[in-house]
């Protein structure tokens, strides 16, 4: 890891004054040797630095800025989660578990208890892709400035099945999947202290738009909160992650479903897929398949089938299609009563 200086920020203004770059910029060939970047828990940043991908000259710690880990609730504005709220904090919050179950589930299945204790909400959103070509120091991939996407013709079992351009990486944030499904809003404070409210679905950037980054964040722009709108009556949600292991693993496929029900009828729906595309993927086909319909085995199955119509798997990730079909179906059915006779993915409460 390179040597770096450390700035312990005590306010947002101070932090923004010190930072001049983004972590994504430091990974590019033309990275500023004097780059100063934000560090919250540093879970992903330190990985990138240890792997020799990012070499910032200065880390600006925003971890201890007062108020950035606050959770507040307002009947009109909804639930406001400070950027530094930890994944463990999300998991332990009873209000989230009650009103935003899919978010609770996404947070509680991410990584490991020690990481969840450290990792922050905003850090989770801005982490870089775990594409193993991108993460390999020896290989300069398309996202790092070359003309080659190694995964296209290589080991692509973990990669995208839809919505990719040339780069087939997948976005790594599970929280983003659930937050997109809830139509959450990212509160960004720009360099001048001005607050921008950006819908989650506009926060991420496809590599076909800009391959050097995964979010719209510019240098010194700080995520200060994520706002979940007040849930409407009869809104229910569910999240399912499938990994090769039941804990401490990245998803092979994940889905968050949020629906407004009237009796057994689905009036509004949102279905968002993770580990499917370079950004959280909103499946319009799945949404259409259940909106206005009664939720049952037939409609849930149809939603899974519809969602996968547009999938174009790579050489080694065709398995994701049946997995997605299954978890979409099961997540939708779980909006009512969870299906029986499936392998229980729920983790015991004690390790939350």
């Amino acid at each position, binding site marked *: *890891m390179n040597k770096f200086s450390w700035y312990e920020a005590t306010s947002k203004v101070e932090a923004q004054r010190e930072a001049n770059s983004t972590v994504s910029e430091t990974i590019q060939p033309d990275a500023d040797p004097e780059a100063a970047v934000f560090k919250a828990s540093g879970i992903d940043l330190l990985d990138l630095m240890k792997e020799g991908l990012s070499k910032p000259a200065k880390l600006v710690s925003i971890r201890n800025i007062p108020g950035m880990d606050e959770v507040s609730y307002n009947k009109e504005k909804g639930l406001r989660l400070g950027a530094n709220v930890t994944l463990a904090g999300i998991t332990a919050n009873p209000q989230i578990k009650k009103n935003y179950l899919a978010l609770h589930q996404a947070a509680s299945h991410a990584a490991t208890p020690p990481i969840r204790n450290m990792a922050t909400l905003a850090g989770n959103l801005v982490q870089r892709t775990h594409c193993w*070509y991108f993460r390999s120091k020896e*290989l300069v991939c398309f996202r790092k400035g070359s003309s080659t996407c190694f995964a296209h013709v*290589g080991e692509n079992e973990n990669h995208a099945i839809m919505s990719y351009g040339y780069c087939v990486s997948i976005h790594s944030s599970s929280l983003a999947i659930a937050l997109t499904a809830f139509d959450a809003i990212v509160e960004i404070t720009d360099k001048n202290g001005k607050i921008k409210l950006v819908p989650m679905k506009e926060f991420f950037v496809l590599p076909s738009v800009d391959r050097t980054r995964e979010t719209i964040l510019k240098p010194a722009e700080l995520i200060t909160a994520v706002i979940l709108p007040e849930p409407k009556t009869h809104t229910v949600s569910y999240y399912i992650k*499938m990994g*090769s*292991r039941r804990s401490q693993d990245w998803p092979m496929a994940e889905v968050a479903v949020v629906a407004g029900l009237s009796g057994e009828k689905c009036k509004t729906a949102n279905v968002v897929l993770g580990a499917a595309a370079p950004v959280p993927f909103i499946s319009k086909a799945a949404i259409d398949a259940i909106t206005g319909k009664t939720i049952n085995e037939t409609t849930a199955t149809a939603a899974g089938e519809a969602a996968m119509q547009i999938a174009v798997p790579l050489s080694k990730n065709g398995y994701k299609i049946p997995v997605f079909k299954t978890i979409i179906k099961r997540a939708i059915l779980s909006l009512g009563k969870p299906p029986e*006779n*499936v*392998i229980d993915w729920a983790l015991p409460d004690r390790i939350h």
Partner: protein
Amino acid sequence: MKKVKLPYGIPDYNLTEIVREIPNAEPPALPVNSKLKVIGKRVKRTDALAKVTGTAVFTADVYLPGMLYGKMFRADIPHARIKSIDVSAAKAHPGVFAIHIFKEMIEGANPKENNKKSGYPEVKYAGQPIVGVAAISMDIAEEAVNLIRVEYEPLEFVVDMDDARKPEAPLVYQTNVNQETSSGGEDIEEGLKSRGNVRGPATKSFYGGPRGNLKKGFAEADVIIERTYRTQVQTHCPLETHGVVVDYNRGNVTIYASTQSTKGTRNDFAKTFDLPKSKVRVISEFIGGGFGAKHTLGNFGVMAGHLSKQSGRPVKLMLDRKEEHVSAGNRPNSLQLMKVGAKKDGTLTALKLLSYGTAGVGLGSGVGNIAQAMYECPNFKMDQYDVFTNAGPGAAFRAPGNVQGAFALEQLIDELAERLDVDPLQLREKIDKSTIRKVQRERGTQLMNWKKPKKAGSDPGPVKKGIGVAQAHWPRFVNLDSTVEVRVMQDGAVEVRSAVQDIGTGTKTVLAQVVAEELGLKSADITVLIGDTLFPIGPPSGGSVVTGSITPPARNAAHKVKTKLIDLAAGELDTKAENIVVENSWFISKSDRSKKISFKNLAGKLRVEQITETASRSDDYGGFMIGTVGYEELGAVQFAEVSVDTETGFVKVDRIMAVHSCGRPINISQIESQINGGVIMGIAYALYEDRVMDKNTGHQMNPNLDQYKMPFSFEVPEIQIELIEEYGARSSTDATGIGEPANIATAAAVANAVYNAIGVRMTEIPITPARILAALGKI
């Protein structure tokens, strides 16, 4: 020589006594465990507290005054000739004390051709070390490594075994190569020729070569099954990576090493640096796992030696996790083509095995002797080929070969049972001559409430449950170069010394137990000092030899000490030595039990400060077993219960029942720990672990513990262990090891259970959701 009666057989089954003729110096027969006080009990590890409180010093924890940090520059392409190496900037970097460029590699199969062109070894895999740097801090060493410039002439490369077998494949080696077998015991047949990248076939093991006539055997068969199986490359992933601290000290060398063989590390170093063995001391008190990959000094150890010699300072060189994955050993993969012929009644008539495996740039990718040795079959032939690829060298890995071999053989036998419409345990009853496994099957049948498995794939619903069973075979190896010294001091302190290292399984504790039992003491009374070549040389921790090799000389040395103390006690108590009995730390006159003296008081009467006795491992009583197929080796039977979600392909192991034996058990808790570890490693091999190499770039894509998937607590099922005491009357303790047998059968048992669940054979591991879904026709 004298004749003694020793316990023989299995308690509650066929326990009897056997008369063996043994040397006069051997101690009297040890009765069965139920009659002993310390051996065979759940004794707490002597170092448990040190380990859980973090005071145990592993190699990674060693810091010496003036110590430098070593780091190696490694090739970032898989195959190349080195045109030039520029270390000038690194040398000029402040804080750098030494730089060494490798003249030759010592790992893998290394023909001299390497050195012909530029004087530098040819780069044969991505991650091969080229230059080493020693600096005052790790940061500076890394910075210096980043300043090194190497100019390559890139060569064509191949990392995929199937591609490497093709005639047009780029050659990893231009000539025939050989490689010494490490003390980890991977099979390497000397002098075999290569065609392209394919070397072999190896046709024999220490059990001999082919038997009978295959053609005749298959002609006699009523049923013939032919199948192909594949297993993946698995890396060792010890929590403590490979590493050393070398203090060259002008030729009076001290090496702290995370090694499975203090002796091997010392000898490798003495040879490489042309020093007498007496000038090289290796210390390895605690080892954070090895699993077979830590038997030799390694390139890193040689490098640390050069850097320390050059700088005149101690140098620490520990590999990081990525270096560990790409360069520090692995279990080679395998492609196994098996063909079995059987009569309707199950009798095997012929068994044929053809295998290919790649240990990267190394040798030793055979699939072991399990097909040759587990079942009675008059006609047998095996052809095992090594395939070279541009990947890091393989190394011995917990039951080298036999883990791969068992995965294939035990599925084939399972399939044969189904074809013959018999219970798979019934078929084994017919073809397996091992008494130990017979008893293990019986116990397992009761404990599992085992019935003939239901029709494969017959469960309704998306999640299907299945059961499976598989067996293990491992030879009873002994290492005769195993010596122990026992000392008693005037204050009554007892010390055991041996250079044997404790790989983590509890060697210190078993030594304490055996000596305590012999001297009538408690194991906590014994101080065990091991892992230092200043002490008498001990065996390497490989081949599951340690307990079977080191406990007999420990007991024998303790017995010699006891004999001296009894003589002393006889004088003190005014009686004859034959009249003295030792009980609970008292020396007592049998004829007048009021006459007695405590161990401590007796020791105080010693004429000298301490008495010392040494013993080496003697030959096995009744002759060695190795060399012929005996069917009475280290068997095991494991049962698995699994659930398979046929809609997602997810496999969950619900339960493992592991029925094992290892001769006379010395410490039940430690044996169970090893079996737990073996089973978990077997589950990982069956379902998760896989070294992913990118064909196009020659790099490993998952050289970390994030994307290289080890099992975590949620992946560990209920593991039940049934341990069978078994006496073979082979040594003064009659103990054997358990490390390797514990790891052999699990993957096959899981695979058989998955078949029973879904009705489709998974002939390739790891059994991932992708493979399950493909097998079910869902992709």
